[in-house]
């Protein structure tokens, strides 16, 4: 690997690791508060919240989950995938270096600037941004005074621009490869290609939505503010955001699907089964991903016809998803599978993806979504996919990428232990969330104890918190094991 690319990739990965560590720590604070509302957090509490006897203050709670979501999506998973594309892609398409490595270097600078702006926003007058990762106006505009929300906007715009630049490089690297044979393009490359395509299509919409939010905050417009301002409508932002926001899930998971397919095939020492069907399924998901966002608005008063349409399109995503799982099972059928680190991560990722994907079905149905919308069930569902499956997929990719970076990956037994501890930890966190949602627990609630009907569910909150601690510890243990044997 070219030393410049190696440096860019290593720095981008380190930034993603830093983001993931911060996001993970934040999630532990959130979990503690939900399990032991108002009680001081052991060890960290007195340092973080000295004025509140070490307990999470009510006013800080929304800021904590806003930062958690923003960091995890825009400054952990996204830069990690950008770096892994830089490392993995050139050899997959027969190139020495990516087409435009300078784009990835610029992306690293933007990611770093964005993270710095986001963290600066925590110290802003009138407090940190506290409107969730979707930044819905007017909560994020008229009702969020001070520089915190503006810094958040700029930070996310930096990440979006960085991702866009990286995606242009991915597209140019694949499409411009001199001896490219599409029929032999590995599924990993297809995953990066489809994800980059979605980025190129939908990140400009996010950037546009952010620009309009900025305009509402600072240029005196009232595009998303009603009533009294003719033409303003907060719901328009919801459409703009989710047109990007739903494909974002597939932007993050398409490379994982490709990597899982290739890792299982390599471990089984045979080509991926039904390769063409998998490429077609990836293409179908890419297409559908832009047509299903309306399920985020099923309870926002969509016309019944529109709601039915979005429901049906959303359910259709299960067809290509079934094709992926069928291909993975077929690849392993009759094969011989020795110990292999990426395969272990991939298998764990498949288990979590099956559960995460299928739990989307009750959410897609207009009728059941009436009960489940904005509940802990939603949080459990998308974390099974976006947190657990993607984390395991990233480790499957990372395990090989470390070799290309000239670093030694942890041993196979360590990797297997880590993969299954991560999977168990994730199941322990997110399955209780599904249960909480079925019990009617709304998400983003600082103190669920205030509601009588939620009292019987407190034990599930505590199970999730213990499992979250296990999940976090497993990542720390991997980091220590890797650091000690890295050269």
């Amino acid at each position: 690997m070219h030393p410049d690319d190696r440096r860019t990739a290593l720095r981008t990965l380190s930034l993603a690791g830093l983001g993931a560590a911060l996001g993970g720590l934040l999630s532990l604070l959130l979990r503690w508060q939900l399990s032991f509302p108002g009680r001081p957090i052991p060890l960290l509490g007195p340092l973080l919240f000295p004025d509140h006897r070490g307990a999470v203050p009510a006013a800080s709670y929304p800021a904590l989950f806003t930062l958690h979501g923003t960091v995890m999506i825009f400054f952990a998973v996204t830069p990690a995938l950008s770096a892994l594309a830089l490392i993995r892609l050139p050899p997959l398409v027969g190139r020495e270096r990516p087409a435009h490595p300078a784009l990835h270097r610029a992306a690293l600078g933007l990611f770093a600037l964005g993270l710095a702006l986001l963290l600066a926003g925590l110290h802003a007058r009138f407090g940190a941004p506290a409107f969730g990762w979707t930044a819905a106006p007017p909560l994020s505009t008229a009702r969020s005074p001070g520089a915190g929300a503006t810094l958040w906007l700029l930070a996310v715009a930096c990440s979006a621009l960085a991702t866009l630049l990286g995606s242009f490089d991915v597209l140019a690297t694949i499409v411009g490869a001199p001896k490219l044979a599409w029929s032999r393009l590995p599924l990993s490359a297809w995953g990066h290609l489809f994800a980059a395509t979605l980025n190129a299509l939908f990140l400009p919409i996010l950037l546009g939505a952010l620009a309009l939010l900025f305009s509402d905050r600072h240029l005196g417009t009232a595009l998303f503010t009603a009533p009294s301002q003719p033409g303003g409508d907060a719901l328009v932002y919801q459409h703009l955001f989710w047109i990007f926001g739903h494909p974002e899930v597939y932007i993050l998971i398409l490379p994982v699907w490709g990597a899982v397919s290739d890792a299982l095939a390599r471990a089984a020492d045979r080509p991926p089964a039904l390769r063409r069907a998998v490429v077609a399924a990836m293409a179908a998901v890419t297409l559908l991903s832009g047509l299903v966002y309306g399920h985020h608005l099923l309870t926002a008063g969509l016309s019944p016809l529109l709601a039915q349409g979005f429901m049906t399109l959303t359910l259709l995503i299960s067809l290509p998803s079934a094709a992926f799982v069928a291909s993975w099972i077929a690849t392993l059928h009759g094969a011989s599978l020795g110990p292999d680190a990426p395969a272990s991560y991939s298998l764990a990722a498949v288990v979590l993806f099956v559960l995460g994907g299928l739990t989307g079905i009750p959410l897609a149905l207009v009728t059941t979504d009436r009960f489940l919308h904005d509940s802990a069930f939603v949080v459990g569902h998308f974390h099974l996919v976006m947190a657990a499956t993607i984390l395991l997929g990233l480790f499957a990719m990372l395990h090989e990428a470390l070799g290309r970076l000239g670093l030694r990956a942890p041993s196979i037994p360590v990797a297997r232990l880590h993969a299954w501890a991560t999977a168990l930890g994730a199941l322990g966190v997110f399955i209780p969330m599904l249960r909480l949602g079925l019990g009617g627990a709304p998400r983003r609630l600082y103190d669920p104890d205030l509601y009588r009907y939620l009292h019987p569910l407190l034990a599930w909150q505590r199970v999730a918190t213990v499992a979250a601690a296990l999940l976090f510890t497993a990542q720390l243990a991997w980091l220590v094991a890797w650091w000690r044997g890295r050269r």
Partner: protein
Amino acid sequence: MPPDLSADGHRIDALLRVSIGLTAALAAAFLLALAWVVHRARQRARTAAPEAAAPPAVAVALGVAVLVFAVIDLTLAARSHRAALGPPPPDALRVEVLAQQWAWRFRYAGPDEVFGTADDVTTLNDLRLPVGRAVALEVRSLDVAHGLFLPLLRSRADAYPGRTARTWLRPAREGRTELACSVLCGAAHYQMRAEVTVLSNEQYTHWMNGLSDDQRRRAAAGEAPPPGAWAWGP
């Protein structure tokens, strides 16, 4: 699921049970198939047994898997469509709900059944409903987006400022329950809750008459009716 106090919530609950059951069955089928092929593959690696060729019917298996999902998807979509509530009956009790950071205001039209008149009854964080009668709710927001969520009455409507959200329900059992704000609306979002009481018809009439008389007395004394009412659409 928490207890259901509504007459129509069973439609949601039944579909939820079916969809969760199917989800669990499909997950079990996939995971058992995966566990089996992985177990055999590991066994082959340990014993250095020869590999089996990929089964010729693998494309058929994929087709079947996709077809199963297509059938399940369409069945569930049709069931969801059939379970939809439709518009409220014309004789439904109408309640206007005004959401703001961080409280719920409920307005009843009073005996004349017209909103914005002197006999309107308004309450703060206190919604009382008669058992057995359909209740239509119109929800508006004064500031940011809020979510009206009645878990035990299986009802929900998200209110965006400048828009009117509509939902309706029919309480089937007397009792007390809670209304939660389900859309993040600021620092005290978690405190934006209201008490909901389903009363017998006699209790409800008694309560409503008491408040309405009180309201009329205040109007007679020259007090303006509480502001914030709107005219109902068709």
